[in-house]
């Protein structure tokens, strides 16, 4: 009797766990939280951004389909086109 109850209890726990997972998925699937529209979410912007060019027309930043944003100068171009600091966040140092 005890063992049968334990089986039912454990089955119930696992089913509840699965329901919670599905509920959590549905919550975030339809969630309109502002955070998901941030620039960090590559799914919120589908249009290509314009390239950033220097005075000679050389690209400093441009979009490549399938690879995202490309920065030919790497970190050395950060002072020109901006950067995100891990400590200070997207607003940068003021």
């Amino acid at each position, binding site marked *: 009797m005890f*063992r049968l109850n334990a089986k039912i209890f454990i089955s119930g726990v*696992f089913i509840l766990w*699965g329901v919670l*997972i599905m509920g959590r998925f549905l919550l975030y*699937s339809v969630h309109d939280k502002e955070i*998901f529209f941030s620039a*960090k979410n590559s799914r919120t912007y589908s249009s290509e951004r314009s390239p950033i060019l220097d005075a000679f027309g050389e690209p400093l930043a441009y979009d490549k389909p399938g690879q*995202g944003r490309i920065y030919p100068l790497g970190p050395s171009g950060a002072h020109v086109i901006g950067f995100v600091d891990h400590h200070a966040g*997207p607003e940068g140092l003021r």
Partner: protein
Amino acid sequence: MFVFDIVKIGTAIFLSLISGIVVYLYRGNEKPLANIRCYRIIGAAYAVGITTIFISKYNGHNVPLFLVMLSFALLLQYVEFLSVKFNYQGRHSLLLAALVLSALGIVIQYHIGQNLTKFGVKFPVAIVQLTFSSLGVLLVLLPLFSGRLEKVVNFVADKTGPLFWCACSFILLALPSFSGSAAIAGTRSWVIGGSGQPSEFVLKVTFPLFLAMFFYAKSDVLNSPDALVNFKITAWLAGLAFLFFFFPLVFIQRENGTALVMALTFLVMITLVSGRIYYFILGALLIALSMTVAALTVQKLGERFIGGFIYWDSFINKSYLDGSGHTPGFQLFKSLAAVNGSNVWGVGLGNGELGIPVVISDFVGAALAETLGLTGLVIVLLLLYLPLKEAFRYSISGFKGLFRTGLSVTLLIQGLYNLSGTLGLLPMTGIPLPFISYGGSGLLTSYMAIGLIVTLISARKEANHV
């Protein structure tokens, strides 16, 4: 527009075929002809999925990779041929479930399209996943169909005991420390230069085996109505488990995720065997308390628990630990952002913006949920539940009943915990999704677990054996 329609049609056919298989498996009424058709349907679904991604994501490029990927469909037909050739009379349901999960895993890895470098050579992850899935299928199903796996199980049951498996597990878990492999993400869990994870074998084979042997040997005591006697033997078991399993995992390997899955498996098994539900409640509280203390006292764990789970939205762009450069909330943010908008059917195979860190292993659930939506998630959950459903159909007493239950519980807990971590329901601790996450050791040991469960279910009539 035409390409977009191909995605919708291809994904719809893929999901329909897979859903049909799941419904058949849950009916529990196996018929030989229907089983054979299932292998063909899985092969067809797999081919549709791969072709959809080939057209929509790869735009028809890299044909050699596409052709290699299709070979898994041929392997499924070979498995069907082998089952007929060996006149296999056992149950097919769990084999089919494992093959569906494997097919899903390979399709998702092909969709993700990442490459990795192993031993100096660059490979698509999908090829590695395909290779290990195929190896798992052949290495386990051949002995299963021929009856050799049952002989191995009987030999192990007759000739070995729980302390033997304690010692073996301790050696396996200590092995990475002596193999010279470097730590990866703070965890020293791999041997042979970053490949081979003994903890997966311990988690999915030797730990359930140890528990089954111990419970069977002490079954009279565990069934005793005297709560004190019962508690003493439980404490003795917990001590052994801590010394030989949890200690090397947590303090030598620093592999907390596997230790957590083991602890949960232990909790479920002791509840089932003793019939005392309060063990589960007390044990769950103890595990939660341990995790909280660990998070508050160990900075790296605090980073994952507090920065990557509780306050994840505050640490998307901010480091939790000064100077580390890690933004622990970023991974969960990307995962939830991927899920956002995927709804019931997902965005379709080949579509979706990923960019989730470690999406090929820990967060593969996010890629699955994004492309296949709630439907894909439900399919995976139902397939992970199936081994336990099959194990619970029969008695869990006796060594074989205990062993198959332990194996089923371990696979289920691993899958549920991974999906929970992906969706931010629980803190993610590097636990893979069985059959779907990238990882050779994980794949092979998952197949081993399924093969053992099928063997033990087929041998259930030998109730008096061991």
